[in-house]
């Protein structure tokens, strides 16, 4: 380490470096971030932390890796060896075995410990301490701690999937509304007209004509649906390219070439207002309720598609400020294209405030998902989430562990994301702190 680093005047004075330093001063926020890393780790590794399959085992002289094998089976690329197909993993006579920390999967019904067994082993009938249900069991003998671990995975996925969708839509629409305003997006008449006509055709040929292919694929598998969706996407893009190839020729005609401006800001602001007017919970509930097959993924996607307004508002406000700054004018003077300016220059300068909305947004998404699964809407019955665990407490008052632990997990995770959001807010605007 060189000696100059410690001198404050030599420190990196870029905006991000300052934000980072400010953030690090906030111990609560730093610990929250570390906790979030932990949650994500547990979420990703859930199968290796709580599972009734062993991580590795020796059985009849051969070595197996059952958890990896189960991934292979569910992807359809491998099969169970005959001696391991349809076995009760807890009753096998292993030569040696490496079990996960919690030797139960959330769906595994421990028939000997069914009917709400209290935490920490008292009253449980287990073969050894290793198999204790540390947080108790539910009515069917399913391990609560394992459910908590796998609930962490659901929460992580809700955070990632819902927020990515919300962020992409929010930034895109917010940036267009803020940067273009009502008068800056200009195009020739012919480009506008042709694009609208071809947009109509693209929707017809990519989605309407193919609607049965899409819905049939969705009823079979999510993967097949994605492939069909991709094909539709390609058709859509190809059709949309056509008018933009013709336009440069037709633009030469004076009447068709006249520039018209598109009121982006009005259109998008109105869209936001419509979205905000409909009560989100009720809308999500109705959408999830009309799904013929409840699935946690659809719920996440719905939450994401309905959660972009906050981000869009933020980005719009930021870009309204940014677009009149000198460096944008400089970029325009250099003749860069509008989209390049938006994506490379304008959006990165407003991302800091977006981070704040993301932190709060993840907290909101997790809360929404857990209230939905608490109400039993939008999740398949066999899916274990924090919300579904908590709701099982309503059937048995004496099972306090079902009321306390899952709720605690939701509370702590939501709080931590809120703390992170607060920390980021403080770090980005140090004046507010004083």
């Amino acid at each position: 380490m060189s000696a100059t680093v410690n001198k404050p005047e030599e420190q990196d004075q870029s905006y991000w470096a300052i934000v980072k330093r400010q953030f690090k001063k906030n111990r609560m926020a730093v610990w929250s971030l570390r906790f979030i890393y932990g949650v994500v780790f547990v979420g990703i590794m859930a199968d290796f932390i709580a599972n009734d399959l062993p991580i590795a085992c020796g059985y009849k002289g051969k070595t197996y890796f059952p958890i990896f094998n189960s991934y292979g089976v569910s992807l359809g690329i491998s099969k169970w060896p005959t001696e391991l197909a349809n076995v009760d993993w807890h009753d096998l006579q292993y030569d040696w075995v490496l079990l996960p920390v919690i030797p139960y999967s959330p769906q595994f019904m421990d028939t000997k410990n069914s009917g709400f067994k209290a935490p920490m082993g008292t009253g449980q009938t287990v073969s050894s301490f290793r198999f204790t249900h540390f947080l108790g069991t539910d009515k069917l003998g399913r391990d609560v701690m394992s459910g908590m671990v796998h609930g962490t995975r659901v929460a992580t996925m809700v955070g990632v999937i819902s927020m990515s969708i919300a962020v992409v839509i929010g930034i895109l629409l917010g940036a267009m509304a803020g940067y273009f305003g009502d008068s800056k997006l200009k195009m020739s008449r012919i480009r506008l007209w042709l694009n609208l006509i071809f947009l109509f055709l693209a929707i017809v040929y990519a989605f309407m004509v193919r609607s049965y292919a899409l819905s049939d694929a969705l009823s079979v598998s999510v993967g097949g649906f994605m492939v069909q969706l991709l094909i539709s996407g390609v058709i859509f893009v190809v059709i949309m390219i056509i008018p933009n190839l013709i336009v440069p020729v037709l633009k030469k005609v004076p009447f068709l070439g006249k520039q018209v401006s598109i009121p982006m800001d009005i259109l998008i602001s109105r869209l936001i207002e419509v979205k905000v007017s409909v009560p989100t919970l009720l809308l999500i509930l109705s959408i999830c309720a009309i799904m013929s097959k409840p699935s946690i993924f659809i719920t996440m996607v719905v939450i994401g598609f309905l959660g972009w307004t906050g981000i869009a508002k933020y980005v719009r406000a930021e870009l309204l400020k940014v677009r009149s700054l000198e460096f944008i004018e400089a970029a325009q003077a250099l003749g860069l294209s509008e989209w390049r300016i938006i994506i490379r220059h304008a959006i990165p300068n407003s991302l800091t405030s977006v981070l704040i909305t993301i932190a709060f947004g993840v907290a909101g998404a997790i809360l929404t998902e857990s209230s939905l699964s608490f109400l039993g809407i939008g999740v398949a019955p066999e899916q274990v989430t924090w919300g579904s665990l908590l709701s099982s407490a309503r059937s048995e008052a004496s099972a306090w562990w079902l009321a306390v632990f899952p709720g605690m997990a939701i509370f702590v995770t939501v709080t931590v994301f809120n703390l992170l959001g607060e920390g980021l807010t403080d770090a980005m605007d140090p004046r507010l702190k004083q």
Partner: protein
Amino acid sequence: MFKYVLKRIFYFIPTLAIIALVTFSLSKMAPGDPVKLALGNKDNGGEAGQAAEKIAGEKAYNAMAEKMGLHLPTFYISLSTAAEPDTLYKYTKRAERETLQRLISQYGNWPQIEKYYANIRKVQYAMYEVRQDSTTYQPGRELNNQVNGLFQLYKDEEILASLATMKDAAALSPAFTDAARAIKQLDESYSAVKTNATNAKNYIPVIHFFGIKNQFHRWLFGDKPWFFGEEKLGQSAGFLRADFGFSYSDKRPVWSKMKDALPWTLLLNFVSIFLAYIIAIPLGVWSARQKGSLADNIITFILFLLNSLPVFWIATLLITFLTTPEYGMNWFPNFGLGDIDSEMNAWDVFTERAVHLILPVLCLTYGSWAYLSRQMRGGVLSVLRQDYIRTARAKGLPDNKVIWKHAFRNSLIPIITIFAGIFPSAIAGAFIIENIFAIPGMGKLSFEALFARDYPLVFTVMMLSAILTLIGNLVADIMYAVVDPRISFSK
């Protein structure tokens, strides 16, 4: 100011139109045949019923479809392919319509498909004529099953298999001669569908216009005359004239069900919001005045935690620990509103209700209370930084006067935004709380309607809360201007 309000009301209309469209399309996408749901999901014309019974069932279905306006086209315009006829909406049975659409998407020749479908019906009617005896019972049953199933088949191999089974069954008894002839016709018409396929028509988009006699228009504006003209039986007044249709589950008008539920939701919401404001505003001001002190730090932290406490967790905890004898703290009744009988006097009724409402109100209050206090504290703090506060202090005004006379009014602005949210939350109900504590308010009503697929109720609640949110936003904007004269809307 007046101009601003007018402008906002003008914007109100397109927004409302979009919300109506979204609500309407969601209600159209909801699974299940609405007529069957409204008729109580009875499968009309079951396998062994008498011909008369089946025809009566058919009639009841059509009458109900007409009552619900489902004999009309869906919307003012429709976008379809050239293969699809614009009269497809006349097939009121949803399953049949969807099967026909499938067939059209496969073969694209409506005249042949229409004939094929008519022939299925002919076989069905021919089967009504067959007298039941010991020889015809078994094959007749099989034939009826196949015919009823055929209305919903669109895959080639399934249709062929079904036709083959029908032919075999019809050959078993001389009583089936009419049916066998009809089946032969059906078979021929199906091969005609396949041989004369015009698939290219499926790739030509066509827009049909239907005028104002359509389901959307009927739902929103009604088909009853607005001012004069003769009313006919079975006409709807439409959503805008407060005719929300009738509930599928008990056939009562939606409005009358909502009228029963609304008072409880309003009571809950107003009590909890009143409490939240009463505690939050002074606490926020007090906390802002003590800024940086230990008390302020502790309160801020507690408020922060309260703000992120999930309400359904707290409710579950309260129910688990305070309403059951398990933990020795059986202090509250666990759900409902208590029993009221005619002999109780007003005071008893009040205490009975109050005891039942304490926990729900507590759950509803703490969250908004924490949120409001934080907003209030933030508002006061940002106002206290302003120059005019420094001026007020500099000229020697006492601290109390500075805070309450100069700072308080301006720091109310953020609080007003939240007040606008009361309207929608009042109608959508404290969804979760009402369900956990089994309070018969709007939240419980719409939740149960969701599960019972009672869609008119669900989408009415959704539409009404959207309208109330819009009004709430408008009211909030106007109140801004009243509280803070610096805000001007004349751009």
